[in-house]
C-alpha cells in the first residue's frame, strides 16, 4: 500500500498503477524518495522502472542488517534516471534465516558485481545470478563480514 503522502509523487504513483501490490511502504525524507517493494516483485518493478520510467542506470545495490529484527535484511537499490535527473531508492526486507531474493541482473548488467558484493558481505543469495561468488573476500572465507553479529576485531594471533 502506498502511503497517502506519496500519492502526488509521479514515480510512486506510476509504480502503484503498474502493480498495486508491489509497494509495501514508502517515505519521502530529506528530498529522497524510498519505496519498499515486496521481494517477490522486485524484478518486474525494476523492469518497469527501467523501460517505462527511464531509470536507465542502477547506481548501486547494497544491504543493511537490522539485527535482531525478524525481517533482518534490507536490500537497498539506488536507481538513477539521467533523462529525468531523478534518483530513487528501492528496498526489500528479507528474513534472517536463508535470505534469498531474485537477481536484477536481467534488468541491469551493472547489478552483477553489486549483488556479488552484497552476497559476499551479507550472505544474501540472489537467484538467477549468472556468477554468484565472493568478490572482495577470499573464496574460502567463512562468515559474512558486514553482518551485525560478525565481530569487528578477531582474536590476537
Amino acid at each position, binding site marked *: 500500500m502506498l502511503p497517502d503522502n506519496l500519492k502526488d509523487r509521479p514515480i510512486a504513483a506510476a509504480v502503484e498503477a503498474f502493480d498495486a501490490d508491489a509497494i509495501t511502504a514508502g517515505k519521502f525524507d530529506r528530498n*529522497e524518495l524510498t519505496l519498499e517493494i515486496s521481494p517477490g516483485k522486485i524484478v518486474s518493478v525494476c523492469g518497469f522502472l527501467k523501460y517505462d520510467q527511464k531509470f536507465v542506470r542502477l*547506481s548501486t545495490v547494497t544491504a543493511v542488517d537490522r539485527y535482531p529484527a525478524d525481517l533482518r535484511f534490507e536490500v537497498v537499490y539506488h536507481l538513477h534516471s539521467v533523462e529525468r*535527473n531523478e534518483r530513487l531508492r528501492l528496498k526489500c526486507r528479507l528474513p534472517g534465516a536463508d535470505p534469498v531474493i531474485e537477481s536484477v541482473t536481467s534488468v541491469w548488467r551493472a547489478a552483477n558485481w553489486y549483488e556479488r558484493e552484497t552476497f559476499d558481505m551479507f550472505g544474501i543469495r540472489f537467484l538467477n545470478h549468472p556468477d554468484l561468488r565472493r568478490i572482495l573476500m577470499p573464496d574460502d572465507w567463512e562468515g559474512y563480514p558486514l553482518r551485525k553479529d560478525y565481530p569487528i576485531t578477531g582474536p590476537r594471533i
Partner: protein
Amino acid sequence: MPVELENQAPEQERTTRRNMVLNMGPQHPSTHGVLRLLLELDGEIIMKCQPDIGYLHTGIEKEFEVKPYQHAVTLTDRVDYLAPLSNNLGYCLAVEKLLALDIPPQAQWMRVMLAEFTRLNSHLVWLGTHAIDIGAMSVFLYCFREREEILRIFEMFSGQRMMTSYFRIGGLALEPPRGWQQRVKKFVDVFPSRIDEYENLLTNNPIWIGRTQGVGMFSLEDMLDLGVTGPMLRAAGLKLDARKAAPYTSYEKFDFEVPTRTENDVYSRYLLRVEEMRQSTRIIRQAMDGMPPGPWKADAPHVVLPDREKMKTQMEALIYHFKIVTEGFRVPEGEVYQVIESPRGELGYYVVSDGTKMAYRVHMRTPSFGNLQATPCMVEGTPIADVIAGIGSMDFVLGDTDR
C-alpha cells in the same frame, strides 16, 4: 619409463587448437594497484576477460560502524588515495544532510576550490602513468612536477600532503592558512601553460595517436547498463556530471563547462580529461577571486568544536568541547544517498543513522568499482596490447574499488 613419454599429451590433445589462459596481475605495473585479469587468448586476441578484485579490501565500511562520525572522516581519505578530498566531501555532505547543517559560504567555496585541486591532482597522476603505460616516459615527469605543487598546497592547508582530512562535518578542519591566495594564484597563473606542454608532448604525437585512437571503444548503452560513470561516459557523448545535474556545495555559483566528446575511444578520453583540467583551473580561479569572507565552520555548537579562544573564556564552549571530544555527537535517525562528481565519476555515500554517535551503515558507491565492471565488455575481441591502453583510460584506483 622415461619421463618424457609420461608427460606426452594424447594425440588428439596435441593436434586440437586450444586457447591460452594468461594471468595478468595482480602485480603488473600497468594495473595501477593490485588488479588481476584472467585473459583467455586466441593468439593475440582476447576471447574472454575475467577481472579478479579484492586484493586491497580493508573493510572500511565495517570500520565506519564503530567510529564516531567525525573520526570516520579519516577513513574516507584512504578509500581513493588519489582523490582524498573528494571522498571527504562526499561523506561530510551526507552527514551534514542528516544533521541539516548550514555550511557558511567561505567553507563551501573553499571546498569547491580544493575539490577541484583534487581533480587536477588525480588527472595529473592519471595522465603521467597512462602515458608511461603506453610508452611515453617523459610526460610522467612533467605531470609530477605540477602535482608536487598541488600536494604542497594541500600541505599548506591541512598539514598533510595526501591523507588530508581537511573537510570535516560542519566545515573545515583548520582556518585557511595565511597567504594561501598568493600560493594558489602562482599555481593557476602558470598551470594553463603547463597543460599546453603536456599537449605538445602528446596530442599530435603519432605514436600516441596510433596507440589510442579507435582503441577501447564500446557503446554508450553498454556503459550505462554496466554502471560506467565520469569521464568515460562523457567521452561517449553523454553530458552527465553531478556538479551540474545536482549541484552540491554551491557549484551552481561557478561558471564552467562540462566537456563532452563523441569519439568514445582512449584518445578522446585523454582529450576530455585535459579539457577537464582547464575547466578545473577556471573554477579554482573563480573561487580564489571571489572567496567570500566570514566563518569557515558552521554555527552548530553541538557538532563543531569551539574556537580555542572561546573555550578558555566561556563555560558553555568548554562544556561543548568536552562533550564533543569525549562522546562525539548524535546524528538524527534517517538515511541519505549523497552523490558527488569525483575525478573518476559518480561517488555516492549512502549513510544510515540510527540516532547514535556512530553510523549504523555506510556504503560507498565508488566510481572505480562501477567502471571496472565494464572491463570485459571493453577488451574482449581486442588485441592484448590494447588492454593496457584500455584499462589505463578507465582511470581506476584499486583502493577505491576494493574499499
